[in-house]
């Protein structure tokens, strides 16, 4: 170890490392913050309406956010790299329709159709990744394009048809209503996916490199991180997870048409942002994103339980997003100011 010599550069570096540490700490605190907000809502609503505080109700809340949470895990991975995937809703819809149609026309059995749906999602994600990394098109524009292209494909394939519950095999429909050791399969599926992703992002080298790309793309290139390959990988993962949500879609809702999951991308991004993931990449966690989805789902459920008009929902959702992002920005600015001042001294 070289003895520490106080140079402006070194102290600045120390400051930056300090900033990173502090930001990591804030990220931890952010998750705690969502949990506290969640606890506060649960407490207030439970006092008002005992119906709310029941196992079956919590099960319903988690069921209604499970698919969003799965997609949010993929979206988090992409956003961490300072990109965004706007096409996830269309990927879910296209995969949901294709999977349903394969089952309806008896082209494939249930396991094969599920596999085909996942592969399709992966392929669509890979196409996004190629356009962005090889084509050098900004992600927001590229995925805005594929959002429309993928949805258009779904309409073309569907041609006005829809898949209804009678067309789907019972074994497929039962996936969504089944449970393992008392836990509904959809919830279990979301938890397992989130846990694996959370572990890999936190502890694997590749995971850390994804954060590095997002927090400083130029520096990541300098230290030799294969940014393009990793960004491509993030989009592939995001497509795959949207595909997983897509194959579960028909099982959950029983009816699939070409407009399935329209607008889902905004719900997913809302969950990710409320969950404390920085929209400019580099910080945030999968657990936070999942908690964000749960928070928004809980608010929606609470409004219904309290017999409030659902017209409030959009306004409240918007307020929660502004509050969450506003708090983040305020805290970040505050620490940034303190740290720059220490750096200069």
């Amino acid at each position, binding site marked *: 170890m070289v003895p520490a010599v106080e140079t402006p550069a070194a102290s600045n570096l120390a400051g930056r490392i300090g900033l990173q540490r502090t930001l990591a700490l804030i990220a931890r605190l952010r998750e705690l913050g969502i949990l506290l907000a969640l606890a506060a809502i649960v407490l207030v609503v439970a006092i008002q309406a005992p119906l709310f505080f029941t196992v079956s109700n919590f099960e319903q809340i988690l069921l*209604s956010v499970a698919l969003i949470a799965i997609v949010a895990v993929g979206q988090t991975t992409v956003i961490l790299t300072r990109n965004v995937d706007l096409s996830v809703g269309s990927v879910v819809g296209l995969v949901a329709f294709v999977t349903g149609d394969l089952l309806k026309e008896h082209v494939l059995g249930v396991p094969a159709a599920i596999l085909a749906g996942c592969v399709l999602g992966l392929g669509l994600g890979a196409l996004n990744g190629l356009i962005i990394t090889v084509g050098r098109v900004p992600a927001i524009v590229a995925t805005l394009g594929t959002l429309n292209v993928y949805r258009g494909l779904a309409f073309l394939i569907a041609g006005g*048809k*829809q898949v209804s519950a*009678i067309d789907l095999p019972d074994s497929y429909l039962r996936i969504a209503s089944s449970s393992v050791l008392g836990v509904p399969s959809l919830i279990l599926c979301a938890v397992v996916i989130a846990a694996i992703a959370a572990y890999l992002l936190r502890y694997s080298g590749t995971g850390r490199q994804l954060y590095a790309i997002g927090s400083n793309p130029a520096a990541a290139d300098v230290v030799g991180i294969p940014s393009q390959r990793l960004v491509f990988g993030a989009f592939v993962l995001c497509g795959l997870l949207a595909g997983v949500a897509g194959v579960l879609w028909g099982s959950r*809702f029983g009816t699939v048409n070409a407009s399935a999951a329209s607008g889902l991308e905004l719900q997913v991004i809302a969950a990710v942002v409320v969950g404390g993931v920085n929209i400019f990449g580099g910080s945030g966690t999968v657990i936070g994103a999942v908690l964000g989805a749960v928070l928004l789902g809980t608010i929606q459920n609470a409004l*219904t339980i309290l017999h409030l008009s659902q017209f409030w929902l959009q306004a409240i959702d918007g307020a929660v997003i502004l509050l969450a992002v506003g708090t983040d920005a305020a805290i970040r600015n505050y620490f940034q100011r303190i740290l720059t001042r220490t750096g200069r001294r």
Partner: protein
Amino acid sequence: MRLPKGAFALAGVAVLALSACGGGGSSSASPGTATLNIAFLPKAVNNPYFDVAATGGQEAATALSGQFKQVGPSDATGAAQIPFIQTLTQQNVSAIVVSADDPNAIAPALKQAMSKGIKVVGYDSSPATDARNVFINQADSKGIGEVQVQMVCDEIPGCAGDIAILSATSTATNQNAWIDFMKAALASNSKYSGLKLVKVAYGNDDPQVSTTEAQGLLQAYPNLKGIISPTTVGISAAAQVLEQTGKAGKVALTGLGTPNLMRKYVKDGTCKEFALWNVKDLGYLAYYTAALLVQGKIKGTAGEKFTAGRLGDYTIDTSTTVLLGPPFVFKADNIDQLNF
């Protein structure tokens, strides 16, 4: 080889003359035996609903030995129907049977068709009143509203308890009109005094939102005895929720749906009955009415009476509308007869 320019001109004149003869031939036929060349123009083609209506139109065409064809845009947006109306006008069809995507946008094109002697019949969704001869109304709002209350009353033991409505969007004109008639029926008919409407929820005709709202209704109103969903997306989402939460059979479900979407749930008892108009008959009646107009057997004025083949007698009412009939109730024993 070079042909003199005159040859082309001559050929052109010949073609024009031939086509003029063709046109003159058909229009000079006596009204009673005029050829029936009737085109259906739905909001969108490849739509199962309109395809079933087309089978009814085809059936009437066969019965009357007329011609039937269906053309239309691939998606139901804005003024996409206008070029189709113009083409049909140029083709000089004898009648256009149209479901207006935008009643006013297509009115000028339809008026032009009418000025050429083409009869215009609206079905499913009426064009502007002065841009059609007759409109075939699938069901009146009052009947649609009341049949749904009647069904939920039939399905809830003792016809007493809390009920909720799961609608489409809060701005949907049709649904709101039906809901108003449901409320009126609940308030005015002593038969329904035991039923209490606790909530109108909106699923936005989106399966995901409808599912969440249906779940919310079950959670928020544990004593809920019945759900009425006057929209196909809502009723199938509610059925799926009842099955997944084990509430099927405990909470009655009814409303408006299509047989294909509801077949599974009717067969397994989650939804015992639901209503819709008979879409095939709608197409049949529309073709039949158009044919009678073309043949000059009716003029399309208020108060005229006519017989439409297997469907029986109809009267054109004061708003030059013909009402198809009471809503059609689908149950386990008749749901397999229709496929849409």
